[in-house]
């Protein structure tokens, strides 16, 4: 089962593939360090540029960016109390007080080492858990695959929390976008309105760039944020090899937070910020000196940074094996796989083992590289990124978005379509409609329809074929549980709250 993993290693350590991870990590740290930019946005902008690249090079860039950005978010969190990414909020609790005491450099070193440890643990979890899960899912037929798609959609909508109606609207919108173009069986046009550009359907990259890149750019231009005044003299940085012995006392926190991060990553809809908060709370509860937390306790930085990086690769376990991403970044990464003709799900492991296992190694290398590239010298340089003017940054990102989308098919139609999706994405963002269900709907919608129709053909039009075996029934039961569970829990919590108030 794991032989494919070892077979994929030689290609990953090739110069081009390795360079892609290095560039990805640096780019990720840069992106994460800039408040308002996220890994999701960076990967969305990057995906169209990877069309001409080998799949492993493209995936190496993505793995590097994901790892780098999760750490990069700690830089403004520590220095300015502005989390660079949502997952870095918990890092501000102790990181910023440390910077106020002149220990900003040490806080960032704790962050980078903890991020690397979390990332390494997460990559190992992906390597160990994904292959056996894929073996099981390889046994699935069309009806089971259809139910997996339905389960995926249901889980991301109902486990995301918030408002299920908005989540469902997002998912319906995503699935609707997936049906635009030629019908997969009969070839008849659906919602193309005579536009030849729509015959092949809507490319996922256009949707990704519109939804995930345009709204943050509008935010960058909308809110003038002053971030000047950061210089290396405030950091008090020592070489990282001298400070490492001071960190060894965090070993219990590193293990605990890695487990929490991996677990949260596997759960659909949770994400890095929940992992970081949960890990911070657990570490504080286990601490012998909980009173010092919040006033510059380095262990607090270690707890949150380990967990938010441990969430990265593990979020890809359900994404790669079942096609169900655990986080928004994982959803965008699935889009990245699709543009290279790699359909996430069990077949990926059978048809492209070199790519999928190579991707896992790249996650591991990306996490290890964090210590080297995000070490003390680099941290001083990355801190200066905070002085970049936001309007200039916004205008450059707009240009990159246009180039990326135009280069897919070499036509401006796609750019206008992307702007349309961007406007929709901005409204959704402001009204708190979750965006991952849209992407998942686009990925799983076509997949579900194709398998539904295949199952119906096998069953000669009998819909009962969808419920004809135990695996399908289990998947139906899981889907119902995912939908009904949170509703029952909410009712139970409300009842208890009323009783308490009464």
């Amino acid at each position, binding site marked *: 089962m794991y032989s494919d993993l070892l077979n994929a290693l030689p290609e990953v350590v090739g110069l081009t593939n390795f360079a892609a991870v290095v560039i990805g990590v640096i780019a990720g740290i840069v992106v994460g360090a800039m408040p308002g930019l996220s890994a999701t946005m960076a990967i969305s902008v990057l995906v169209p540029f990877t069309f*001409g690249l080998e799949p492993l090079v493209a995936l190496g860039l993505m793995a590097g960016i994901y790892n780098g950005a999760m750490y990069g978010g700690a830089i403004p969190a520590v220095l300015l109390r502005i989390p660079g990414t949502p997952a870095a909020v918990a890092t501000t609790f102790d990181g910023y007080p440390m910077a106020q005491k002149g220990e900003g450099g040490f806080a960032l070193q704790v962050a980078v080492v903890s991020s690397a440890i979390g990332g390494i643990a997460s990559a190992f979890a992906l390597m160990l858990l994904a292959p056996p899960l894929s073996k099981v899912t390889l046994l699935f037929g069309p009806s089971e695959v259809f139910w997996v798609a339905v389960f995926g959609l249901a889980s991301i909508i109902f486990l995301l929390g918030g408002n299920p*109606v*908005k989540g*469902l*609207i997002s998912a*319906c*919108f995503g*699935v*609707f976008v997936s*049906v635009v173009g030629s*019908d997969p*069986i*009969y070839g*008849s046009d*659906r*919602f193309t309105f005579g536009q030849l550009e729509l015959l092949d359907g809507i490319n996922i990259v256009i949707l990704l760039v519109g939804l995930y890149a*345009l709204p943050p*750019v*509008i935010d960058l*231009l*909308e*809110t*003038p944020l002053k971030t000047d005044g950061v210089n290396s003299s405030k950091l008090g940085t020592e070489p990282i090899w001298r400070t490492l012995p001071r960190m060894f006392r965090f070993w219990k926190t590193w293990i605990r937070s890695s487990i929490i991060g991996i677990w949260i990553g596997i759960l659909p809809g949770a994400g890095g910020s929940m992992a970081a908060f949960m890990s911070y709370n657990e570490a504080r509860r286990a601490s012998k000196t909980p009173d010092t937390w919040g006033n510059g306790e380095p262990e607090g930085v270690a707890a949150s940074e380990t967990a938010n990086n441990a969430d990265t690769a593990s979020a890809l376990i359900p994404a790669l094996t079942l096609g169900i991403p655990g986080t928004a970044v994982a959803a965008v990464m699935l889009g990245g796989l699709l543009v290279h003709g790699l359909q996430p799900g069990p077949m990926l492991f059978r048809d492209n083992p070199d790519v999928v296992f190579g991707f896992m190694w790249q996650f591991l290398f990306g996490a290890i590289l964090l210590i080297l590239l995000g070490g003390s010298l680099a941290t001083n340089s990355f801190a200066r990124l905070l002085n970049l*003017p*936001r*309007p*200039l940054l*916004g*205008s*450059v990102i*707009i*240009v990159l978005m*246009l*180039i990326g989308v*135009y*280069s897919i098919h*070499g036509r*401006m139609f796609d*750019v*206008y379509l992307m*702007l349309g999706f*961007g*406007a929709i994405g*901005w*409204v959704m963002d*402001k*009204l*708190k409609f979750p965006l991952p269900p849209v992407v998942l709907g686009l990925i799983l*919608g076509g997949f*579900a*329809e194709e398998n*539904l*129709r295949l199952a*119906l053909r096998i069953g000669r039009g009998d819909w009962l074929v969808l419920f004809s075996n135990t695996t399908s029934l289990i998947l139906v039961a899981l889907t119902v549980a995912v939908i009904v569970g949170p509703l029952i829990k909410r009712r139970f919590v409300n009842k208890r709250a009323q009783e308490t108030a009464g």
Partner: protein
Amino acid sequence: MSDHHTPRLLRPETLTALGIIVAAAAFLAPTTTLRPISALLPAVMLGGLIVLSVLLLIADQRKASAGEDAVSMTRSPKRVIGAFGLILGYALATDLLGFYPSTAASIPLVAWLFGYRNPLGLAVATVIVVGTIWLIFDFGMSQDFPTGLLWKE
């Protein structure tokens, strides 16, 4: 900006729900010309969008009745409209005038309008960005960019 006095029908969530209902109903019409199996998924999704939007509408109107404030979309509407307008203008200019002239004008224009007003910084940034794009995409990857519809004719 307080949205306390937003009229009930102009609340952002209500407007969004109404917009979705109208758009979904308009898209539902073409499904009648499709084979039933081809129309199944889109019709279910569009029907779902209509039903869910009605629920969203009702929920928002209930909030309005209870005196809850409408969701605030932006603190500076002028900046948001300006940003969208400039991005659309950049895309149209690229289509009509070509990629390089539009980009060379848009980068400093957008940055200047939104608050970065250092002429030297703008000039240097524009030269670096446009030069790097030319070097990587045009020279290195032979990527074609729009040359401008105006010049073609």
